[in-house]
C-alpha cells in the first residue's frame, strides 16, 4: 500500500475512535444531568438553573415546575432544589471535562479506549 494512504488510514481510524469516545462522554454527561426530586425526574439545563435562580431572587420560596414526564411538581424548598441541581450540573460537567481532557492528549487508538 502507498505509504501516504497507509498513514491517512491510520489517522482516519484514530479520528473515528476519537469521535466515538467524544460521543460516549457526551452521552454520559446527558445521563448524569438527570436529577430526581420527590419521585419526579428533571433533566438539569442551564435554563432550569437560571429560572430557579431568578425566582429565588424574586423571593419565591416555593415553585411549581413541569418535570420530564410533563407532570407538575411542587418544589417546597426552592433554595435547596437549586443547590442540588447546580451540584448535579457541576458533577456532570466536571466528569465530562475530565474525561475529555484525558483523551485529548492521547495519540493512539489503544490509549484512547484504554485497552
Amino acid at each position: 500500500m502507498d505509504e501516504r494512504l497507509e498513514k491517512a488510514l491510520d489517522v482516519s481510524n484514530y479520528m473515528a475512535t476519537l469521535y466515538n469516545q467524544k460521543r460516549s462522554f457526551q452521552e454520559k454527561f446527558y445521563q448524569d444531568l438527570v436529577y430526581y426530586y420527590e419521585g419526579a425526574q428533571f433533566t438539569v439545563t442551564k435554563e432550569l438553573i437560571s429560572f430557579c435562580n431568578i425566582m429565588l431572587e424574586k423571593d419565591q420560596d416555593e415553585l411549581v415546575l413541569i418535570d420530564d414526564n410533563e407532570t407538575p411538581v411542587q418544589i417546597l424548598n426552592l433554595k435547596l432544589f437549586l443547590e442540588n441541581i447546580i451540584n448535579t450540573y457541576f458533577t456532570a460537567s466536571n466528569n465530562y471535562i475530565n474525561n475529555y481532557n484525558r483523551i485529548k492528549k492521547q495519540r493512539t487508538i489503544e490509549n484512547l479506549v484504554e485497552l
Partner: protein
Amino acid sequence: MSNNSGVLLFARNNTKVDYLKQAYFLAKQVKKILNLPTTVVTDSKDYLLKSFPDAEKVFDKILSISWSKNNNNVDFVVGKDENHFYKTYSDGTIFKTKLEFKNNLRSTAFRISPYNETLLLDTDILLLDNLYKHCFTQDHDFLIYDKSYDLAGFRNYSEFQYVSDIGVKFYWATAIFFRKTEKNKIFFELVEHIQDNWHHYKSIFQIKQSYFRNDHAFSIAIHIMNGYNDGDFAKLMPGKLYFTTDKDICHSIKDDKVIFLLEKENYIGEYTLMSWQGVTIHVMNKFSLNRCIDMVNQNV
C-alpha cells in the same frame, strides 16, 4: 420503594444462545448495583441449576414454566399453544444464523411477577449504573422507554420511532417498570390479546417484520390504552435506552467499563472502537455478550 419490589427476567435458551447465562450475570449486577432481588422465569430450570450451582442464592426465585396444561410439575402453566418464531441473529457484520426466538412470555409478566413493583428487563441488558432505582421512588405506575440511542451513530432506525410508516409510536419492551394496579392488569391482558391475534394486529398496524416482537405488541397496546391516540398512559423510564445492535461486537467487560467494536459504515467486516463506562446499555449481540460474560467469570 415497597418491600415487595424486584426485577423479573425471562430466559429461554435456543440451540445457540444461552440466555440463562446472561440472566445469571444480570441478577448478580442487580443485587450489587440496585440491591434488589431477581426472579427468573425459564423452561430450563434443571439446566440452570446444573450450570450455575449457586443459582438459588443469586436468584430470589426461579420459576419454571410450561406451555402444556398436562405438565403439573412447574410453577406456571401458560395454557395455550406456543407460536414458534425464527429470526436472524448476527455476530458482527459477517456471521449470521437463523435461530428460534422464544420471546412470547413477556405479556404474562403481570401474572407471573411475584412483586408489587416490578422492573422487567431483557437479559441482554448490561447494568452499569443505578438509574433504575429511581423507578421505584417515582409516582407513575407504568414506565417504558421511547427514546433510544444507537452507539454506532450512523444507522438510521426509523423503525424505532414508529412501528411502521403509518403506524403508532414505538416503545421498547426491553426495560419496563410496572406496579400491580388494576389498570396495568388490563394493559397486560390487552398485550396478551394482541399477541394471541398477532396476524390481525400486524395487518392493521402495517407491521412488516415476519416474527412477533414484544416492542410492537406493547406499542400497539399503549396506543389502544390511550384511546387510539397520543396520551399519557405510559410514562418514561429514566434517561435514554442506549444500545448496540448485533452488527456490533462486545469486546470486553471490566467492572463498569465495556469495550465495543462498532460496525463501520459501508465497510463490512471493519469496526471502530468505543469504550463505554458507567451507563447501562442494551447489547443485542448475544454471542459476543456471552463471550464477555465467560471472560468475566473466568477472571473472578
